């Protein structure tokens, strides 16, 4: 399973990368800005994406729209809680920071 990581905090990106690798995923990214996230969402051949909501002043919602259009499932990672996610995207799994590896494992298992 190939997973795209969108995360502007490099320490968190490294963490998510490790956790996903532990789960047997192949990771790509991280995309660190809203624009590069959209670009990666369009271009990358992935089975799943993990999207940090806030990207240095922007958000990953446009990237989520692209992924949805392509039929690629995704989950959000956020320090702001559910309310930080655009209302029409809240049906996607929302993981909070710090990341609970068990929650991440369940989310990945459900997408497999």
């Amino acid at each position, binding site marked *: 399973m190939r997973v795209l990581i969108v995360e502007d905090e490099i320490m*968190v990106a490294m963490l998510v990368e*490790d956790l996903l690798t532990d789960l047997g995923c192949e990771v790509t990214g991280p995309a660190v800005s809203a624009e590069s996230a959209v670009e990666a969402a369009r271009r990358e051949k992935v089975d799943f994406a993990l999207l940090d909501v806030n990207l240095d002043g922007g958000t990953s919602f446009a990237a989520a729209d692209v992924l949805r259009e392509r039929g690629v499932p995704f989950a959000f990672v956020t320090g702001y809680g559910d309310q930080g996610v655009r209302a029409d995207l809240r049906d996607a799994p929302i993981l909070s920071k710090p990341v609970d590896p068990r929650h991440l494992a369940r989310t990945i298992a459900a997408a497999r």
Partner: protein
Amino acid sequence: MGGRGAKAGGAGEEARYRAIVDTAVDAIVVIDEHGRIEAFNPAAERLFGYAAADMIGSNVKALMPEPHHAGHDGYLETYRATGERRIIGIGREVFGRRQDGSTFPLELSIAEWRSAGRRFFTGVMRDVTERKRTEELQRLLVNELNHRVKNTLATVQSVAGQTLRNAADLGDARESLTTRLLALARTHDILTRESWEGADLRDILAGLIESYGDATRFTLSGPSVRLSPKTALSLSLALHELTTNATKYGALSTPAGQVAISWSREGEGEDERLRLSWKESGGPLVSPPERQGFGSRLITRGLALELDGEATLDYQPDGVACAIVARLRRKPAANAVPARGAA
């Protein structure tokens, strides 16, 4: 208080009430049961920007924006007919309208009274704009604090996880984790002093060297450079890793070894970049490590991406060399680069 009707009691009592009403900090407006203004105190003049003389006799709805402006006559009628209270004796927050048409939130309480067979209402009002603003600011600050704390905890989770994955033994893990958290805390201190608006590279380096304990081992040269909070945090952790590595295996592991840190600014405006060089000398012969540790992963993989620049770590035989190029200002969203290659 310029009242037309509403005479109650004798002249002495009238004077006493007038003294209270005229000096009150809160705006006080008296209306009759048809909404006609009977009295308008000086605080009300200041609050709404009308002179009392102009307001006496006019309809109180002039002080209200829509929808209450249009509805107020009806509210009074309903109250006269049914006695149903919406606001009288209860108090609530409503919007007021000043003479210049601007609106503002106000806290309103209303008392009803009778005199000489007529019914009057006294409204006491206070501008709560400032309180609203403070409440909103506080809400934003609490949200932002929560977000920062969560992100910081995630950073700690990441540092702890990677430290434990890479550590030779528990003692090594304890030491590495502690010094990494201290490095993060040092940068937090600098950023807090600057209200999280940024940090000067010199302050970051001074903190690093102070924690190392021997300034004679370092030579620094470069101009004052303002770093964004994010750049400051990443860069200081990277510099901490370089220092730790030098202490264990590099120039700082021998009595005479030196570390030269030099930096310059290049370009202008949004293209302005920081170019920083770390060069060790006088240490033992250097050979590249067998596997990538946290520090080199942070520098070569993470830092370049996060700083929108380049970072190279070179294990030259005569001493480790690290070159970091970081964008100093955020690029406008429109011409951002596409995502870089796969991990």
